[in-house]
């Protein structure tokens, strides 16, 4: 302890002058960082001996903006955080405000929300799979994944007119009634999608290069994952069977049967398998949901001017990336006093250093990919 300062100085000197160590800046313009992530890598040859994530390039101050908007006005902003899973963001926000208002969306709205959110989960995982495989060197899955993702985006477009930043839900329910052929479209997609997942798996699951690049890379043990607050597929691949859809059901998830896939070793390959299985389960949820969409209103009775009674609420949902939490405080006026967004990507990214140590630079690319981060959400 006493030699701390001298040790620091030596360390510094080593970094500057030592021939065996190198500091490498990766990003923010590196294609594999999926946006504007900058990683400072400390290397010993090809091996990573330390790392630091430099984030904030995409910081827009979403939480500050929220304090200057009404509850409804802020809703479109949340779509721009995790912009590849805008529907999930919207669901979390709307439900949080509904909790604050102590209203509940009608059953029909809940089911439609569930269908769209699960489609969004598939779309988000497809984007992850395509880009992650591309990063590691498999070009083909990208085209397949985008083909299927396109089908989902078309459904969103038919439903609400937007494909990416959908703003599909409203506080209290839905603005738009489901269009006539929604069930048919979802069914057609789900029917076709089953064999499509098999196609992806045929390309990758037993592929020797894929195995070589993902097995044993970026291991995160269960205890470490919990300590670092990792959630979503990252936590489940480490063997913790925890999914908010099951643990604290929201929307209409308590009505459907589905499994929570878990991994064993917590490496990149396990996370791949978990996400693949999650897509299958999401498909099953969609199929169950379209079978019986209750009739009735799609909007709960909420006023045009929302003034939630003073108080606070924390509401979390299982977004494709993990636990997406909204902590909202109302002071009884039309604007929230404070909106805190607990972003899954931000917290999961913290595990990066732990996962990357001891691996090669090329594996860093695989580890960033497997964390499935979206910088819009990390930086907010």
């Amino acid at each position, binding site marked *: 302890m006493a030699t701390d300062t001298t040790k620091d100085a030596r360390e510094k000197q080593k970094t500057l002058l030592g021939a065996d160590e190198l500091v490498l800046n990766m990003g923010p313009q590196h294609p594999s960082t999926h946006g504007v992530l900058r990683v400072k890598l400390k290397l010993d040859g090809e091996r990573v001996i330390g790392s630091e994530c430099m984030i904030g390039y995409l910081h827009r101050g979403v939480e500050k903006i929220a304090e200057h908007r009404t509850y409804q006005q802020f809703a479109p902003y949340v779509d721009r955080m995790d912009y590849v899973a805008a529907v999930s963001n919207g669901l979390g926000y709307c439900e949080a405000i509904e909790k604050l208002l102590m209203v509940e969306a009608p059953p029909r709205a809940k089911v439609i929300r569930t269908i769209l959110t699960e489609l969004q989960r598939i779309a988000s995982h497809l984007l992850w799979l395509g880009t992650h495989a591309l990063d590691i060197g498999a070009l083909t899955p990208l085209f397949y994944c985008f083909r299927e993702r396109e089908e989902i985006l078309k459904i969103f477009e038919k439903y609400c007119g937007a494909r990416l930043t959908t703003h599909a839900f409203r506080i209290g329910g839905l603005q738009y009634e489901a269009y006539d052929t929604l069930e048919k479209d979802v069914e057609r997609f789900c029917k076709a999608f089953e064999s499509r997942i098999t196609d992806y798996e045929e390309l990758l699951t037993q592929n020797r290069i894929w195995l070589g690049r993902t097995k044993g890379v970026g291991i995160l043990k269960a205890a470490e994952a919990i300590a670092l607050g990792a959630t979503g597929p990252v936590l489940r691949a480490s063997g913790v069977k925890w999914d908010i859809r099951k643990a604290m059901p929201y929307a209409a998830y308590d009505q459907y049967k589905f499994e929570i896939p878990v991994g064993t070793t917590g490496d990149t390959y396990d996370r791949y398998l978990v996400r693949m299985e999650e897509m299958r389960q999401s498909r099953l949820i969609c199929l169950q949901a379209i079978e019986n969409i209750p009739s009735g209103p799609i909007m709960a009775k909420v006023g045009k001017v929302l003034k939630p009674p*003073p108080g606070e609420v924390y509401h979390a949902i299982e977004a494709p990336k993990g636990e997406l939490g909204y902590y909202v405080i109302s002071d009884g006026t039309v604007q929230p006093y404070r909106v805190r967004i607990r972003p899954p990507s*931000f917290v999961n990214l913290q595990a990066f250093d732990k996962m990357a140590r001891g691996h090669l630079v090329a594996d860093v690319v695989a580890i960033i990919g497997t964390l499935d981060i979206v910088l819009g959400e990390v930086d907010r």
Partner: protein
Amino acid sequence: MADEPKEQQPSPVPAGEKPASGSAPASTPPAKPATASPAGGVPPKPAAPVPPKPPVQLQTPLNNELVGRVRAKFGTALVEAIEDRKQAILTVECTKLAEVSQYLRDEEKFDLLSDLTAVDWPRREKRFDVVLNLYSFAKNERLRVKARAAASEPVPSVSGVWPTANWLEREAFDMFGIVFAGHPNLTRILLPDEWQGYPLRKDYDIIEQDTSWVKENLGIESGQ
């Protein structure tokens, strides 16, 4: 459902049962009669006797077993235990935050720190709330722990208890300027290191921030 009668209330009975929202009724009445009288919808409304809503107390004292155990262990360090919309909230003495956290993790099995953030209440003597959202896998239960801190008061870091807190505390420092004592690397995380001020404080003026930026960087008086 809760909102509709509330909006009608100002015209028939100015009950005044909500003294807190002083500015709110002032803005609604002018709009209300103007639209209501031509429509002819006024007579039915006073006829329907609006049942006077009992003042709903949403924040109720919480006294469950967990609170009992924490109180027995820490005594007066547990300042307040309330429930808001069925969510448990414990407020603890700021100096005891790390110890309470350690206890909650080890003994009460709140092993996941979902979130750590802060809230600014500038009019209060201790202006900041540091808010921890915990989750227990074993109990499938959430718990919110709060600690009140004055602007200059260091808050004990919980990054030793939950490593997750490392980045989350850095973010709270970045946005609010709360100093976490014992944090391994308390630097700005989202904003550039040279940033002035702490944006999520309520007294942080975004217009002022914009103006000073354009003056400095673009050489003009105002960007608005």
